[in-house]
C-alpha cells in the first residue's frame, strides 16, 4: 500500500497552515507524527486528518549546550496532543529563565511550526514543531 502521509507532505502541510495526523479506522487512535502503520494497532487503514493543535506540556528542558546550528538557550518539550500522541517540539515565545517545572509542566497551548535551516546531514530543508503556551 502506498505511503499515506510522508515526512515531506507532513512538513508541507504545516507550511500551508495545516497540522496533519493519521486517524485509524480500526482502533480509532491517532498517529502523530505520521508513520506507515497505526502506532496503536499496526493497521495500515488510516486516514489523514487535520488535528486540533491543542496540547499540554508533559516535560521540557532548556538547552544551553546546543547541537551545531542552534543558538542557546532554547527550550525543547514533550507535548501531549489533545488527540493522544506525544510530539517533540520547541517551546517558543517563552523566556528560558522562566522555564521551571512549576511554571511549564501541565501548561496548555497550541502547536505551530518553525523552519529550520538545512545542514550537511539533514537531506534537505526541515521544520520543527513549535508549541506556544496559552496565557
Amino acid at each position, binding site marked *: 500500500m502506498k505511503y499515506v502521509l510522508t515526512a515531506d507532505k507532513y512538513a508541507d502541510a504545516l507550511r500551508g497552515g495545516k497540522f496533519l495526523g493519521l486517524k485509524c479506522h480500526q482502533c480509532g487512535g491517532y498517529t502523530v507524527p505520521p508513520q506507515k502503520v497505526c502506532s496503536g494497532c499496526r493497521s495500515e487503514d488510516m486516514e489523514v486528518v487535520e488535528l486540533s493543535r491543542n496540547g499540554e506540556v508533559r516535560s521540557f528542558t532548556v538547552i544551553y*549546550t546546543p*547541537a551545531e546550528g542552534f543558538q542557546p538557550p532554547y527550550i525543547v518539550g514533550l507535548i501531549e496532543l489533545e488527540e493522544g500522541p506525544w510530539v517533540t517540539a520547541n517551546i517558543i515565545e517563552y523566556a528560558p529563565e522562566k522555564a521551571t517545572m512549576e511554571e511549564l509542566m501541565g501548561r496548555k497551548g497550541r502547536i505551530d511550526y518553525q523552519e529550520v535551516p538545512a545542514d550537511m546531514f539533514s537531506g534537505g530543508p*526541515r521544520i520543527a514543531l513549535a508549541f506556544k503556551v496559552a496565557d
Partner: protein
Amino acid sequence: MREVAIAGVGMTKFGVSEITQVEMFAEAAMDAIAASNIKPEAIQAVYVGNADGNVEEGQAVMAPMCASEIGLKGLPATSFQAACSSGTLAIINAFVWVSLGLYDVVLAGGTERQRTMSTPLATRVMGFGVHAKYETPTGLSFPGIFAMMAHLYARKYNLPLSELKEAMARVSFKAHKWGSINPKAQFFGKEVTMEKIYASDMVASPLQVYDCCPISDGGAAVVVASMDVARKLTDKPVQIIGVGQGSSGAVCSQKDITRIPARELSSQRAYKMAGLKPSDIDVCELHDCFTIAEIVASEGLGFFKPGDGYKAVMRGDTDMGGKIPINMSGGIKAKGHPVGATGAAQVYEIVNQLRGECGARQVEGVKVGMTDTMGGSFASIAHIIMRRGW
C-alpha cells in the same frame, strides 16, 4: 545451542586518543588475543561496533579495516551500528554464531574516536540517534532527552526536583569515586567532590556538566569462543548465559520515558535465557550516560521498583557492599563513553569482576554479572548476562 564463553578481553585507556579508531581497536584486540592464549589465525570472524566513524575520521567499513590491521584479512568482518549499543550488538552476534556452531572463535568489540569533533559537531552527530525528521530539527540533544526524563521522573513520583538532583549528584559522585581508581578510566586519578558536581555549568536543565558523560575516544575487544575451546585456553572462561535486545523509535513515540519498554523487554529476554531473575545479579555495568539514566535503568532492569531507584542511590544500595553494586568501573560517566566501544568495555569490566581481578574496585563473591547498553533514542537496548565458567 552450544555453551559460549569469553576467553580474554582487552581495552585501551579511555579519554583522548592520539591514534585512530582502527589503531585503538587493534591495540585492544591484540591484548584480548594475547590474554586468550590464542593465535590470531584461530579467529574465524571479526565483529566491530562503531557509531560515527564516517564523520569522526571519514572511515566507513570499520570491521574490515580493523581485521586487516591485525592480519586477519579474508575473514568475514562485519560492522555494527546502533549508536551507543554498537559494541554490545557485536558481542551478542559473536555469541549467536558461536552458539550455533558456525564458528568456534570470534573477535568482537568496538571502537570510537569522538574527540576529533568539536562539542557542537559531536552533539549534532550524537543527535543522529533520534528521529532525523521529527526530533532532530528541534535541536534536541542527548542531554536534552535525559533532562526531560528527569523532569518527568520528579513529576511522576511527586518529589521535589532538588531531592532528585541530590540523588543524581550521588550517582555522579559514586561514578567518579570508582573511576578515579580505574587506570582505564578517562577520569582516572581525578578527584570529583559533591561541591564540584553541584557547581558545574548547566548543559540542559536540570542536567549539569557532572550529570553528563564525557566525549571520549577508546577501543575494547573480547575473544568469544565455544566453551570447549575456551576451557583449553584459560582457567577462567566467563560464560555468556543470557542475551537480550530490544528497540524503539522516536523519543516522543515512547511517551513516558521514565519506563523504557525496550529495556524491560530486552532484559527479560536475557533473564529468561539465563534462567535468572534480577536478584541473582551480583554486579552490573549499566548505561549511565547521564545520572538520571542510571536511576531509571536500575528500575528497568528490575533491581528496584519504579520510583524507588533514586531512594536506592541514597541508601547506598548501588554502591560497593550494597544490594547491587552498579558501575564499579566508574561507569560511562567517569570511565568515558567512546560510544562504539562502550558495550565491549562493560563486558571487559564484568569479565574482570567475575575473575576477581579488579583490585580495590572488586566486588566480593561475584558469581553472575550483567551489562546494559542503550543506543540512540532508546532505539537499541541490549543485555548480556555472564557467569563464572569454572
